[in-house]
């Protein structure tokens, strides 16, 4: 076992895991943060994307211990119990969710993209979205929702 500290969704955590434990297995198995989904488990599908120090990373391609000292944000950490976030509201408005399995990874990735690049155009959004597979293939609604949410991020950056 290996012990280390990290912050998950703003809460300090002391972890003790086997070295081989991936970050996604720690988040889901130990912390029961099951909003982060795991599908391919080898870095192809993007379902497990979380934010590590604000940047989107595949949590199946990281050892939990590699998040030592980091600020990890999962899809739960993007949410607000009072109301939908602007990105969530846009996904709802555009019905950008079908089965929903890929949605947490897309929300985390697109939140990071719009935070980094509030004026990302449709081509850029599609390019970045290529790292997240939606097997319902509902990409058009997802792109529309992300485009719609841009105004909020641009306003926040100004």
């Amino acid at each position: 076992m290996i012990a280390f500290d990290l912050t998950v969704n703003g809460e300090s955590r002391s972890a003790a895991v086997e070295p081989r434990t991936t970050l996604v297995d720690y988040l889901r198995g130990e912390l029961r943060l099951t909003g982060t989904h795991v599908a391919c488990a080898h870095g192809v599908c993007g379902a497990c994307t979380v934010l590590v120090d604000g940047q989107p990373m595949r949590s199946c391609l990281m050892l939990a211990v590699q998040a030592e000292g980091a600020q990890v944000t999962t899809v739960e950490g993007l949410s607000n119990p009072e109301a939908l976030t602007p990105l969530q509201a846009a996904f709802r408005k555009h019905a950008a969710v079908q089965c929903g399995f890929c949605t947490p990874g897309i929300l985390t990735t697109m939140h990071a993209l719009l935070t980094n690049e509030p004026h990302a155009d449709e081509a850029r959004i599609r390019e970045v979205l290529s790292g997240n597979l939606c097997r319902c293939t509902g990409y058009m609604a997802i792109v529309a929702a992300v485009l719609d949410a841009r105004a909020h991020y641009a306003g926040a950056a100004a």
Partner: protein
Amino acid sequence: MKLPRFDYAAPTSIAQAVALLAQSGGSARPIAGGQSLMPLLAFRVTAPSLLVDLRKVPGLGEITIGADGVTLGARVRWCDIEAEARLATAQPLLRAAMAHVAHYQIRQRGTVGGSLAHADPAAELPGLAVTCDAVLTLQGPGGARRVAAADFFLGPLETALAPDELITAVQFPAWSPTRRWGFQELSRRHGDFALAGIALHFDLVGGRATDAHIGVFGACTRPHRIASAEAALNGQVPAAVAAAVSQAVTEAVTPMDDIHASAAYRRDLAGVLAERALLAAAGETA
């Protein structure tokens, strides 16, 4: 699949990291971003006794730009290269190729050293390193040695790196003001591995190409320069010899059939990409 069991260490110096690799008798593996190694572990293609994590080793994350070229520390990530605006003039070919490397999330963690050590024949950085005559610095228990990229890549996932050596940096030679470049690759989906790719540069002096470097990746077991294509370009007006260069590339590559594309398709593709890259470099479009 869950990863196989291994021990884990996060040393705080290159010397400690190399010592740990040496003590393991060849059964340890370094890890940095893990974007190539973690999938191999998940498939249990490899089962090291120990992972030596480089995240706490200082001095590996820097991009140095000077008169002797561009040096990338082994832990420089793809997103660091994308963010370094000075590379637009210091190494424009490298910077332009970054858009083709994997996906957004992978580019936040994937590292230069990891890609070189992994040596996927379809990866961009090994192709660029060979094309540009880059030189790798390897640190072992007996000290450092420098190895030309052309001598480093031996075959698919096979390199000249000894089990007790670490890649610490790769140096790209200085870019000349008269240099033109082209980069083309084709993959089935955005961010996928290339079916074939071409990187090239040459100096345009008096309208004619000199010092041509034409490299191929993804259509062969390891990236390599193509001397016959370079000979077809040197001394010529680039656009006038595009077809001849393309033909030379097609004849020189030795791809294999696989699930993604046939060898014949890849051979043709490499030639087409070479023509496009050359015309783009010459300021014309295919």
